[in-house]
């Protein structure tokens, strides 16, 4: 890229400044927390369950998950590296102190609201702005829920999972753990035992959710693992779009985040799940970032149902997640659109699983990986077409863009086909931003930064197109900020 060695030196210096640009959302809000001491045993689980006033069956479920978890080995197969996690040094419950459940925003701790404002998520404005209802999760307890009445009018249940356990125990009992069983994997087992809160959505039959539902996750109190549990059930013929976005304050210690998301779509239902993830990625040497070990899975239980995952992953020190679809119903559809950016010392092992069981099921996978500096990125995906999945169809595309010569991009697709009528295509490419592309843009007066940003945005366009409008803008901005200083 550089014409002369002097240029190279100058450019390097210039990028150094940019590389050092700090994490924008790094701050800790000081709120008194009601926190359990670090450590994990059955008493801790009982305490969590008791504090949350859960029904008896939940405690039993948690305990059995915990007992099974104790016997599970830590997964080692992902190509990510991190020191062993001491599960006894984590505090498993942290609730912002509250007198009574807040009835409106006025009752919410003003410090909390201030934090949201710092993040550029003005809750008041969002209330006014049509379309988005926010169930903001600050650490582990929901403190602000809006638009509940409006949703209640059409019968949509949108609340924290703790509330749901008290108000709709029959739905929880029926669906929780039915997509991601407690024994599914190590981190899902841990989550099942200790999850503190999360979101529950139920969309009744033949209902189109009138607005996009959104939860902003926040990680706050130092040393607190965050174990969220999300359960979305779309009953026959319904539709819901759910947005999840995250930022986190800067801190020194690694923080474990092991969430579980379960989606269930019955006949003719559709769930669209979008994520923008921008947790603290750690400093230049990778210290202190979030470990994001998430299990996300959707079950297209009904015929003609559809589940669509869209994710933009720019944060976290380590990302380990595979939003998956089980295409059980005939003619069901699964989609996965992903943009993942790793820079600094970030590591990401992400992808999807599409399990075709029903007839004429189809799935689409579009994965775009961008790796810069020392970023390590792997796409790991499974497409399985079972013997009975007559006429199943899959198209997979995974592209990687490398920026710099110390980063890595890996592709590990697994394809298992047991039906002759299946049509399966997979393609993958790896490339860098070509000098020609850059030269073209720069000769038209764009700065190198802008040119790169433009090319990268073009590279990701297919995925951004799948995001809801507000999120798409945010995601583009996030991508530009993430890549600031990573180019050169």
């Amino acid at each position: 890229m550089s014409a002369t060695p002097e240029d190279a030196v100058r450019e390097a210096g210039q990028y150094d400044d940019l590389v050092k640009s700090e994490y924008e959302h790094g701050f800790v809000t000081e709120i008194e927390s009601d926190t359990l001491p670090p450590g994990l045993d059955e008493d801790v689980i009982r305490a969590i369950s008791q504090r949350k006033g859960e029904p008896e069956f939940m405690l039993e479920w948690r305990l059995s998950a915990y007992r099974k978890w104790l016997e599970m080995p830590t997964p080692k197969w992902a190509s990510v590296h991190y020191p062993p996690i001491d599960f006894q040094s984590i505090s498993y419950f942290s609730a912002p102190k509250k007198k009574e459940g807040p009835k409106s925003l006025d009752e919410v701790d003003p410090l909390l609201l201030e934090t949201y404002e710092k993040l550029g998520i003005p809750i008041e404005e969002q209330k006014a702005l049509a379309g988005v209802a926010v169930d903001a999760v600050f650490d582990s307890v929901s403190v602000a829920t809006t638009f509940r009445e409006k949703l209640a009018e059409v019968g949509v249940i949108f609340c924290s999972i703790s509330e749901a356990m008290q108000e709709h125990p029959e739905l929880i009992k029926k669906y929780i753990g039915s997509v991601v069983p407690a024994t599914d994997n190590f981190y899902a087992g841990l989550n099942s035992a200790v999850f503190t809160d999360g979101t529950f959505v139920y969309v009744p039959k033949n209902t189109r959710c009138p607005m996009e539902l959104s939860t902003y996750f926040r990680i706050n109190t130092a040393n607190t693992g965050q174990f969220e549990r999300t359960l979305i059930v779309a009953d026959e013929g319904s539709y819901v779009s759910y947005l999840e976005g995250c930022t986190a304050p800067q801190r020194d210690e690694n923080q474990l985040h092991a969430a579980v998301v379960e989606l269930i779509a019955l006949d003719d239902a559709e769930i669209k799940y979008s994520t923008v993830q921008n947790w603290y990625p750690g400093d230049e040497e990778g210290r202190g970032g979030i470990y994001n070990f998430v299990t996300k899975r959707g079950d297209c239980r009904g015929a003609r149902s559809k589940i669509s995952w869209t994710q933009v992953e720019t944060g976290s020190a380590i990302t380990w997640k595979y939003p998956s679809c089980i295409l059980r119903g005939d003619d069901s559809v699964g989609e996965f659109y992903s943009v993942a950016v790793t820079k600094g010392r970030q590591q990401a092992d992400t992808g999807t699983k599409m399990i075709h069981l029903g007839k004429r099921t189809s799935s689409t996978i579009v994965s775009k990986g961008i790796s810069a500096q020392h970023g390590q990125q792997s796409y790991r995906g499974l497409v399985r077409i079972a013997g009975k999945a007559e006429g199943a169809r899959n198209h997979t595309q995974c592209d990687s863009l490398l920026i710099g010569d110390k980063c890595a991009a890996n592709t590990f697709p697994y394809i298992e086909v047991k039906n002759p009528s299946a049509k399966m295509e997979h393609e993958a490419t790896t490339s860098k931003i070509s000098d020609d592309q850059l030269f073209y843009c720069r000769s038209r007066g764009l700065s190198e930064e802008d040119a790169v940003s433009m090319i990268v945005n073009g590279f990701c366009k297919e995925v951004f197109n799948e995001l809801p409008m507000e999120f798409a803008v945010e995601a583009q901005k996030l991508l530009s900020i993430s890549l600031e200083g990573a180019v050169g």
Partner: protein
Amino acid sequence: MSAAAKNIATEPQAQPGPFDGWLRGTGDDIDAVAGGLSWLARERTDALARVRGQGAPTAKTEGWRYTGLRSLIEQDFRPVDEPLTAVVADDLEDVLVPGLDAHRIVLVNGRYAPELCVTDDLPKGVRVGGLRETLAQDPDALEDLLTRIAGEGSHVFASLNTAGMDDGLVMLLERGAVVERPIEVIHLSVGMDEPRVAQPRHLVRLGDGAQAELIERYVSLGESLYCTNSVLEIALGRDAILKHRRLQSESPNAFHITGLYLRQGENSRYHGVNIGLGGAWARTDLIMRFAGEHAECDLVGLYLAGDKQLIDYHMDVRHALPNCSSRETFKGIVHGKGKAVFDGLVYVAQDAQKTDAAMSNRNLILSDSAEVDTKPQLEIYADDVKCSHGTTVGQIEPEMLFYLRSRGISAPIARRMLCLGFAGEIIDALGNQALQDYVAEQVGQRLEQAPI
């Protein structure tokens, strides 16, 4: 006499493994072969320790995820002990390729059979012989080749071969030697009264600028039951060119394991065509390494897995140096209860800038109970590279069949035509008319006989 080598036979076995039987008696064998070469004895002792330490791969072992070993272990193979002398030139008639003009080398049950070879008019600078005799006469010629390219190998079967090798082919081309006519190597297997495993070790070296075409064919007499666990080590010097054709079409009861380890020098070219028509169970590992820049490695393959057959191709191409290119183009046709596994890995190290790598795997499934598992992988640590992979799995379009049938062509013939069309690109890559016709005929026959 090496004490270490002796231990192979006499040392009490720590824990009995499923493949211990494969090695019985080899200690004495290698002493007879190696004549007390200490380096070789050490390699073999180490290999034996690895076999005992590793045990058998299971379904949890990543490289064996889709390839079950149970049927192989159940056979409880014993090593081939005596060279089979009963085979005469007439027995070869059935397995020859009509019209193929080539120098001919024959190995029977893994043993070099000089009486069946036709190598009189090989040009100067080409040396062909058996591993056993070469080690006895001129071991120095092999010291930088034998076990030096495969190293520890990629799995337990390479170690088994190192510990249990009894003979094999040695082909050494001096610097600048050019062989105009292809060299055909027939690996003939003949079943014995009980299940036997042969573990031949083949060594090929092309000196700087040497050129050759090597046609390897794995064939068997009748429907014999046996296992071949072979390892090939190939070293290409600077500017050397090797065209390598490997045809595997063995008895429906045969088990076949090959590990091909290649090291390419600067600016060398390797063009390999692998045709796998099977046996009962076949596993091939192609392990490609570059030792110099600007080398090209081109791998092409066709596999046809029919009833109850398993064909597994594993590829591991590692770009550690800049400016090399590699291509893998594999196609598969799976019918009946056949199962095909394709696992390709292209690894590009941080310094391997300007690497050009492309991998493609396309599969046709013809029946309900057939299965294809494919896993094309890229691991890339350099930015200025061009890498891609693609894979497809599909069936013959009913419209195409209908078109042909509406013109009066019967279904089996139509299917044969379409499959040969699909496979044509690979068959053409053989670049030898006699061989192309022979393979096309074999593929066509197999497809026509297969139940629809």
